């Protein structure tokens, strides 16, 4: 393979993406391996290698005797062209072996706009796209946050794994190992694997539709459960965590060590899917975090460590944790970064403490411009808090402020949209009065188009049309102070996200058509081709508006009706009703609102 690969690598951008050989990459003795797993990330190397989940599951599977799990990323189109021309099928980075010779090919689903890359990778591997046309092994499965409604991918994957993978992946891979040993058929294997809680085999559920396109029924067969309930890990301190990871030799997006603080979120913002699907909240102890952080920093030699969670400020022992980490980090010149902080004093003081040198970036996500709309989406940030924090920051020399908002939220009026400009203006004025930085403060306002997501209180909502989004973007543009850098997301991307986020399995045909027409890397501006997508919908005969713009009835059978993240749909309905009354719901720490997720825990009570 050597010279063959060299001959094409010299012609492609960033060839180091395609060679493997990094420090920490796991090479196993083939004689001791009976099960080979290709862990595929449907985006480029730099994105995939920045993903903590991938590092965890890679280490986990490789900790199993007899199992060799290797990495595989989507080749950038220049490399794909060369590979196809040279007849090199998609290969795994560790061994260089074609992944079609493996026993399992698994994908991690983080983003709807990476779906065509999955099809492209299967094809580049030399595998049939459709699950029904693939006999025997490898089996193809997928997990990750999009798997909670993976229906558009149902025709292509053999099964989904729902929920946290640390325990489930071991069970699944063990089942694959057993199936190979027993020499059973794929169908028999699927029957066996479907018995593992959290495993969802879409072909074991028949879906029927009303003539208007709504789902009429979802019927389980082969004895599978009516509802597949996601898996969680109860005790994060006991959970598998890799103290050795793969350290990229070339630049990646987030080139740093990441350690999770907790899973779930106490806040319950109504637009946020992560806040629902990762319930209930569970923490790692401070000791565990420190131990894992030290081990990873020592192993990798990284210059930066980031603490990850949905809301860092809500980690109870955060102050103590930072003290302990700084003690270790400072002498080694390691930066500590704290993303997802809230706009309150405590968080700011912490930020000051950890960012001794670089005093530049201040980032907050008020999400909505008016207090009324912030209440409606249950984003409990008050402008006073934001202003107080910004004032201290500006006085302390901070020179940039980034504010993130969404438009198209349920109950939003033009007044709410314009309130974004008002808030930005007040921050600008505050900056003028208080900034000590010589350069002044550069304020950026970024506006995203709201995408209603499954398993959230807004799962029934209609998305704003692209025209409506454009109108609101322009409306805001007219009122946004000139000194503020204003940018917005492309509504057409958000529209397609909305289609696939709440799509049913008929959309598989659209995916395949779009891929055949050349769609890939849809999350990358330079490759996103909206017209091609619209052409694919037309050819298949499905209306994208039906999925994005239609308000669903609360009694409608949704395509993910048979999937449970442990949150009671009745709770989602209550939350939706509260949104329409602009009423906030207290966070889980202030009081339980009975979402149902506590049933996962022993004793049935959340330790929020």
């Amino acid at each position: 393979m050597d010279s063959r690969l060299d001959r094409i690598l010299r012609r492609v951008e960033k060839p180091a993406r395609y060679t493997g050989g990094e420090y920490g990459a796991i090479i196993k003795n083939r004689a001791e391996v009976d099960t080979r797993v290709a862990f595929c990330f449907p985006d480029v190397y730099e994105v995939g290698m920045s993903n903590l989940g991938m590092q965890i599951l890679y280490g986990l599977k490789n900790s199993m005797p007899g199992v060799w799990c290797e990495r595989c990323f989507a080749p950038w189109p220049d490399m794909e062209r060369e590979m196809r021309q040279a007849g090199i099928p998609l290969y795994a980075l560790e061994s260089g072996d074609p992944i079609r010779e493996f026993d399992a090919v698994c994908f991690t689903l983080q983003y709807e706009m990476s779906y065509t890359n999955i099809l492209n990778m299967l094809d580049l591997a030399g595998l049939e796209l459709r699950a029904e046309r693939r006999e025997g092994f490898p089996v193809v499965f997928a997990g990750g946050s999009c798997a909670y409604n993976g229906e558009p991918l149902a025709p292509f994957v053999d099964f989904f794994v729902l929920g946290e993978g640390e325990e489930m992946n071991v069970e699944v891979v063990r089942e694959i190992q057993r199936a190979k040993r027993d020499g059973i058929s794929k169908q028999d294997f699927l029957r066996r694997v479907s018995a593992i809680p959290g495993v969802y085999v879409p072909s074991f559920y028949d879906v029927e539709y009303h003539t208007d396109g709504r789902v009429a029924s979802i019927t389980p067969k082969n004895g599978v459960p009516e509802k597949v309930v996601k898996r969680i890990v109860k005790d994060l301190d006991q959970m598998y965590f890799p103290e050795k990871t793969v350290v990229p030799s070339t630049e990646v997006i987030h080139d740093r060590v990441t350690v999770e603080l907790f899973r779930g979120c106490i806040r319950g913002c109504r637009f946020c899917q992560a806040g629902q699907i990762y319930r209930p909240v569970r923490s790692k102890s401070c000791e565990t975090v420190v131990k894992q952080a030290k081990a990873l920093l020592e192993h990798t030699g990284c210059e930066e460590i980031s603490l990850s969670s949905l809301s860092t400020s809500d980690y109870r022992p955060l102050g103590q944790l930072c003290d302990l980490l700084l003690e270790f980090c400072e002498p080694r010149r390691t930066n500590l970064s704290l993303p997802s902080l809230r706009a309150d004093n405590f968080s700011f003081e912490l930020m000051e403490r950890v960012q001794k040198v670089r005093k530049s970036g201040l980032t907050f996500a008020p999400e909505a411009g008016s207090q009324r709309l912030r209440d409606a989406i249950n984003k409990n940030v008050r402008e006073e808090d934001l202003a107080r924090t910004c004032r201290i920051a500006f006085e302390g020399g901070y020179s940039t402020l980034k504010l993130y908002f969404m438009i198209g939220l349920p109950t939003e009026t033009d007044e709410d949209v314009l309130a974004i400009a008002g808030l930005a203006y007040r921050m600008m004025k505050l900056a003028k009065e208080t900034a000590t930085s010589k350069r002044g403060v550069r304020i950026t306002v970024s506006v995203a188009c709201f995408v209603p997501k499954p398993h959230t209180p807004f799962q029934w909502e209609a998305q704003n049309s692209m025209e409506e989004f454009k109108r609101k973007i322009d409306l805001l543009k007219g009122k946004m102070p000139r000194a503020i850098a204003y940018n917005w997301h492309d509504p057409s991307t958000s529209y397609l996200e909305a289609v696939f986020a709440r799509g049913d399995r008929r959309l598989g045909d659209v995916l395949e058509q779009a891929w055949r027409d050349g769609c890939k890397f849809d999350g990358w501006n330079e490759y996103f081709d909206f017209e091609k997508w619209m052409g694919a919908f037309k050819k298949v005969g499905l209306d994208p508006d039906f999925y994005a713009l239609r308000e669903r009835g609360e009694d409608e059978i949704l395509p993910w009706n048979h999937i449970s993240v442990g949150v009671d749909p009745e709770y989602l309905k209550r939350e939706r009703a509260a949104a329409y009354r602009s009423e906030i719901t207290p966070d889980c720490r202030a009081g339980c609102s009975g979402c149902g997720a506590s049933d996962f825990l022993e004793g049935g009570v959340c330790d929020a």
Partner: protein
Amino acid sequence: MPKYRLVFQKTGSAKWLSHLDVMHTFARAFLRAGIPLKHSEGFNPHPKISIAHPLPVGVEGYGELLDFEADCPSLERVPELLNAALPVGLRAIRAYPPQAAASEIALALYRLTFEYDNGAPAPERLADFFAQETIPVVKRSKKGETEINLRDAYLSFVARDAGEGRIEAEVVLDAARAPVNPKYFESALAETSLKPNYMAATREKFLDSTEKDFE
């Protein structure tokens, strides 16, 4: 004079790493190996390492030089400690206090392997080609395209048949002036009957102005 010098190899998959990648990887490897590098002073301190004549991406190196400043407990153990911390293809060979500054490197010995899928021409023909007085090639850089005479870039070119459709050439390149990327030896042949299917390049070692191995 830098404090220490490391001889290292950059081969196999590591040849696709850029100069910045290699610097970054070494900085981390020193840390992983428990050898604390000295850092520069100032607002944005960076580790004190530098690499002489960074290799172009895609070229292998067997005698690359990296100067560094660190508190080394034992210089002899440095290669062993580093090798346990380096990725595939980067290998530390030996560390020593240097006698000459890297700026005194005058020449570099390259090995070029020309691969012909349908049988190689006689090595003399390649040698004759590269013995011509003017060999125009178009050099591409960020500033645009310029035509250079490749013949000015090397002192000697000795070719031999290496079997299996391959011709191997030892080329002494001038390293003191702006060094030329060895890929131009392939592009020089592009429009001729000697055009190979592929050319692999390896930098064997650096030489001083008397053609002795550079230490």
